[in-house]
């Protein structure tokens, strides 16, 4: 094994001699410390490797030839080895970042830097409490001094504040150590641990002082003003060093001390860590300064680590597991946070909005994205697995407050990090960056390192299975070939997904699963064609797109909660990235990810309260041996309703659907919402034993569906923007599906699923057709279009087919689906709901009429004289969808029969539901009816063809008139478009029904957002900037915690 004394000796010798080396040449000294840091890191890895093969190796080394407690002992076990390896690696990367600084500032700065690392290593290794004090002082003093590399006023002020705070906390630590020595008679942690517990108040005081001394160094809210100022003003290399190496070492000291604490003390500090996490993130919400934001985020993450270490230990988990989980969080934070600080230094932009400078540099943008996404705990980064486990453990131990705090903090974190990412990805900027290699190198290494650590950890994770890797692999592979022409990538993607779908996805699935696999994966594959319309490489679509589709498949395929959640998160992330591609999608994408994350965290909480699934079985098949309580069902249900855009939580939906690129909108609306349907269905299956159509919960769900259908339709009516119209229309249609599912009857579910299939086809169709229109006309406002029927007949036919299908008039499949829904509602006696659903359908006519009339009929706009038909790539999916619609319209049984079979696995088919040839026969006690799609088609065709022939005959005699140029008689109207008939088309209805569509939900969410922002601003006021006030904070905070502890 490696003798850790050698490690320390190496650092010391180099630090002492660096001044002499520097006399030879500056570069020699710089490269020497690079070598030292790399060797030290290598020692860590080596030790780790040795220990992996000889787990029983003695890892404790004494000094001076005496054993502890006489002498000081160092321990170089697995955890220490990991830390030594990582900290020194980051020390090396940080040193590389500071290369230019070192060139200017000389040997002293280099020696100081090395000593920061010495302090950190010593702190990690030592098992002696006073020795940790010495190393803590080395670490702190070296850090104080190195702050001065940047000798501007602000960093000097921040340095003084830091030193005063550090001085106070180390004094508390020292006095605590000595007071404790009075009781224990030892300074060695291991000896100390073997003592029988001491129960006098004085000893508790000693422990408290010791703990608080270290704890203050971990920058807990609100006693952390000094740290924030420091992060904001110090050189970014130094800030990164403090947030990664410095904090990690002190955190490990805290971890070493933890077993000494009394449970009450540990509980208080753990709670304080959680407070720090939540409030740090809360205050970060309104930060505009990137470095200070990172400071808040850094303190929050440290709080999270303190909290998780404490909470998991308090719950009595074995230390190995506690460490594994904490390590996941720690590694993510280490890589990502130092990376972000370095990135701050490279962009040299303090204002978040100026980060758009990254747009010009996709490499840096990707790196930034990796860091941000990793910090938020998205898969496949280690923090994802860590958070998953923590929440599961909290759920099992019923630690609800902790869980709530953790999830709230995480959600806040998502908000500000994603907003930042949005600025970087979507802002406007043309300037370029100066990127010295010495600064790029650490960034690249840490991004790559994070990625590979994640890969390694994901593979190590036993329960996720091979399938779960595919989305990530797809993202990486398509990312690598992203420079290829889009057509080629499209073909590759279609081929890969089809093969995977056919050979891997479908075979193990039950009928219901296959159905959803077809909807989700099949439906998406068809729409890949639309992406192939782009010229050249069209970078950025395919990685996310393929990840999205694989993840969708995995959602159906999931057999454990983790697999499901992993796939769900990957799907969300992929969808976010796709939405973000839209030109003005910054806010929309932010809304999407915030609502999705909110949903995801509810889901996480719900899953944690659910028993573990039986491995190897799909979750939807586990209804018979799994009971799930009402609370998890509720949480999961809400999560899925968010994804479906149910009324109240639909706020994100119109924005995301309309601002995303058209092809993306189509997938979001036609496919992605079905993932929510699948989820909801899954929950209903799991609770199907406990509820029935008449349960209050199902009635409530039914009403949610009804209102979603109703308000969705109503809001669609008043939109000028065709895409927003379609978005609300989608929402409305999903409302019908929810109603159908809420019935908990065979017929209800069949009707809901039948509508789901239909919706995929017709909404995909309309979106594709409208995508072509938007592409050719360059606008989405309906009053700016008109008379396109002649220019784009195919689009017209598609939209016509689509709206016939949507509106539910014969002969197309929509009629059947509506008929199904009404019948099944009536069958359960939900008359009121039927009425309202029926009314919503009537409203649907209004917006659909507007859509086809104002866009395709009427007078053509002069500036749209030369629009052409859509590119073939948009027509292919339309053709497929039209064929599908025709097929299930004429022969509805080809889909209704399998649906009935699939549903039959969960809710038995009633005897009164039968097929008779093409005829579907209902003969229940309360209801009689039949539906023969084939017949309906022939009758309707007949009814239509006769007038058509007549029209054509008459038409032969009509005279064609050229379009008039309408000359304004007098003044030109101030807003000419307001005079267009399509503008505000349904103003009269708005007078009558407008009160229903007042933006209450918008007002509510705006209120929530503003509330959080002002809370954040108010809280930030405690950081007055006065060093003395910060000291006062520390003392008062100490007293407060002491009073909480309540020593008698």
């Amino acid at each position, binding site marked *: 094994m490696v003798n850790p004394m050698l490690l320390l000796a190496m650092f010391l010798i180099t630090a002492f001699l660096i001044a002499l080396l520097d006399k030879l040449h500056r570069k020699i000294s710089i490269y020497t410390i690079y070598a030292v840091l790399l060797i030290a890191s290598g020692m860590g890895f080596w030790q780790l490797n040795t220990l992996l093969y000889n787990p029983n190796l003695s890892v404790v080394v004494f000094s001076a030839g*005496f054993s502890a407690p006489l002498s000081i002992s160092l321990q170089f076990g697995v955890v220490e080895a990991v830390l030594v390896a990582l900290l020194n690696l980051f020390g090396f990367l940080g040193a590389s970042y500071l290369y230019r600084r070192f060139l200017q500032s000389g040997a002293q700065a280099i020696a100081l830097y090395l000593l920061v690392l010495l302090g950190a290593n010593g702190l990690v290794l030592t098992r002696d409490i006073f020795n940790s004090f*010495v190393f803590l002082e080395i670490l702190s003093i070296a850090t104080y001094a190195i702050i001065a590399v940047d000798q501007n006023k602000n960093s000097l002020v921040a340095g003084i504040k830091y030193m005063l705070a550090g001085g106070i906390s180390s004094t508390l630590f020292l006095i605590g150590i000595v007071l404790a020595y009075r009781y224990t008679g030892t300074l060695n942690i291991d000896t100390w641990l073997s003592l029988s517990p001491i129960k006098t108040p004085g000893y508790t005081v000693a422990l408290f002082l010791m703990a608080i001394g270290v704890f203050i160094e971990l920058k807990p809210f609100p006693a952390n003003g000094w740290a924030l100022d420091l992060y904001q003003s110090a050189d970014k290399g130094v800030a990164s060093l403090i947030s990664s190496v410095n904090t990690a070492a002190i955190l490990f000291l805290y971890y070493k001390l933890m077993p000494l604490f009394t449970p009450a003390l540990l509980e208080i500090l753990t709670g304080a860590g959680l407070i720090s996490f939540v409030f740090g993130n809360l205050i970060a919400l309104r930060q505009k300064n990137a470095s200070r934001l990172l400071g808040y985020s850094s303190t929050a993450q440290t709080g999270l680590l303190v909290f998780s270490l404490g909470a998991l230990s308090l719950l009595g988990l074995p230390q190995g597991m506690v460490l594994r989980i904490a390590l996941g969080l720690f590694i993510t934070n280490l890589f990502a946070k130092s990376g972000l600080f370095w990135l701050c230094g490279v962009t040299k932009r303090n204002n978040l909005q100026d980060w758009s400078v990254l747009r010009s540099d996709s490499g840096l943008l990707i790196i930034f994205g990796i860091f941000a996404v990793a910090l938020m705990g998205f898969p496949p980064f280690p923090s994802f697995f860590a958070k998953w486990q923590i929440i599961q453990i909290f759920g099992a131990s019923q630690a609800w407050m902790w869980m709530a705090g953790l999830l709230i903090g995480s959600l806040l974190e998502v908000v500000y990090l994603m907003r930042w990412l949005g600025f970087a990805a979507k802002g406007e900027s043309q300037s370029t960056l100066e990127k010295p290699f010495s600064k790029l190198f650490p960034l690249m290494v840490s991004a790559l390192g994070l990625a590979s650590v994640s890969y390694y950890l994901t593979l190590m994770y036993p329960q996720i299975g091979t399938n779960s890797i595919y989305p990530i692999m797809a993202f990486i592979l398509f990312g690598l070939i992203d420079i290829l022409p889009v057509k080629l990538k499209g073909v590759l993607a279609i081929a890969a997904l089809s093969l995977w779908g056919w050979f891997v996805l479908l075979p193990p699935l039950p009928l219901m699963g296959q159905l959803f696999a077809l909807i989700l994966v099949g439906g998406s594959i068809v729409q890949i064609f639309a992406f192939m319309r782009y010229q050249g490489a069209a970078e950025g679509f395919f990685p996310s797109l393929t990840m999205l589709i694989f993840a969708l498949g995995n959602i159906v395929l999931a057999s454990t909660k983790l697999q499901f959640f992993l796939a769900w998160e990957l799907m969300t992330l992929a969808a976010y990235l796709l939405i973000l591609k839209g030109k003005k999608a910054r806010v929309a994408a932010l809304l999407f990810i915030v609502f999705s994350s909110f949903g995801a965290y509810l889901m996480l909480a719900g899953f944690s309260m659910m028993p573990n699934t039986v491995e190897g079985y799909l979750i939807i098949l586990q209804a018979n041996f799994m009971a799930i309580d009402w609370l998890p069902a509720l949480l999961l249900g809400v999560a899925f309703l968010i994804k479906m855009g149910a009324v109240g939580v639909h706020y994100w939906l119109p924005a995301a659907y309309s601002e995303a690129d058209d092809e993306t909108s189509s997938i979001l609306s036609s496919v992605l919402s079905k993932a929510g349907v699948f989820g909801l269905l899954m929950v209903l299956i799991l609770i199907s034993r406990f509820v029935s159509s008449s349960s209050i919960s199902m009635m409530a769900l039914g009403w949610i569906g009804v209102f979603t259908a109703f308000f969705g339709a109503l809001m669609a009516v008043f939109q000028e923007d065709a895409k927003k119209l379609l978005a609300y229309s989608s929402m409305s249609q999903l409302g019908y599906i929810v109603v159908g599912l809420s019935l908990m009857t065979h017929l209800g579910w069949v009707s809901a699923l039948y509508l789901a299939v239909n919706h995929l086809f017709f909404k995909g169709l309309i979106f594709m057709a409208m995508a072509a229109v938007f592409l050719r006309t360059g606008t989405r406002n309906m009053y700016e279009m008109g008379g396109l029927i002649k220019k784009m007949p195919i689009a017209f036919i598609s939209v016509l087919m689509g709206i016939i299908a949507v509106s539910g008039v014969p002969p197309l499949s929509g009629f059947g689906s509506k008929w199904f829904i009404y019948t099944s509602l009536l069958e359960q006696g939900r008359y009121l709901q039927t009425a309202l659903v029926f009314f919503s359908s009537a409203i649907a006519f209004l917006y659909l009429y507007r859509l086809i009339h104002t866009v395709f009929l009427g007078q053509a706009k002069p500036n749209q004289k030369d629009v052409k038909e859509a590119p073939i790539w948009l027509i292919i999916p339309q053709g497929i969808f039209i064929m599908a619609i025709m097929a299930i319209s004429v022969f509805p049984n080809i889909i209704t029969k399998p649906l009935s079979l699939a549903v039959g696995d969960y809710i038995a088919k009633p005897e009164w539901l039968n097929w008779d040839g093409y005829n579907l026969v209902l003969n229940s006690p309360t209801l009689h009816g039949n539906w023969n799609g084939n017949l309906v088609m022939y009758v309707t065709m007949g009814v239509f063809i006769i007038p058509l022939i007549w029209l054509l005959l008459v038409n032969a005699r009509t005279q064609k008139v050229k379009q008039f140029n309408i000359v304004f008689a007098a003044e030109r109207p101030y807003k000419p478009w307001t005079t267009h008939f399509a503008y505000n088309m349904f103003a009269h209805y708005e007078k009558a029904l407008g009160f229903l569509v007042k933006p209450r939900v918008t007002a509510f969410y705006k209120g929530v957002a503003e509330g959080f922002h002002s809370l954040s601003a108010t809280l930030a006021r405690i950081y007055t900037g006065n060093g003395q006030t910060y000291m006062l904070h520390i003392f008062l905070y100490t*007293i407060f915690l002491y009073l909480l502890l309540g020593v008698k």
Partner: protein
Amino acid sequence: MIKYLLVFVAIIGIGYIFLPFVMEFSTPTKLNPLATSYVQGSVNELNMPNVVTAIVVTYRGLDTLGEVTVLFLATAGVGFLLKRKHDMVNHRRKCSEILCTGASLLTPLIVLFGVYIFAHGHLSPGGGFQGGVVIASGFLLLVMANISFHFSHNLIHFSESISGFIYVLLGLAGLVLLGANSFLDPRYLPAGKWLDIVSTGAVPIIYSIIGIKGGSELCSVIDSLQHGGTEL
């Protein structure tokens, strides 16, 4: 006003925290086992009368190495903060003759006294740091008397580096000669005779090195503070 109130609360509160400890504190009448074994071990195993030195240099030698490092850090930090862009000429008036002569006569004596202190650290009170400070005070005298010392500027840095280096080497010698658990173990040299100046293994050497190291660090701090910060 509210601030004074809060300060008052803070002071009272901090005092209150210590209260339980003070309440149950009574001066002990005997040593705890660890201290006893230090006393016995120092005498028996290290042959060293001064138990504090035994602890500082040997048992807890790693702490002292850290302490030396802290001092080195302070020097580097102060020097770094108050560094001169280029060597400036000191424009102070020359010292009076008495002071000059006195200083140049006294300084060697003071240095000698410092050396005495750290060389006897293992036998009597005092040791490396105290001796170092005494040496530094001699240097201070030179500085105050404004006797030119540019000769010493480089010398200080050199001795800073080399003595630190030697200190670590002395520690490593234990590792090499006595085994993996013997970093900073002075017993690779003979224990010698009780109360002899050349006894207790390498302790006198180590303490002397600490003295030189500490002395030169402190000189360096004084040097930096004396000149520094005049140039931005």
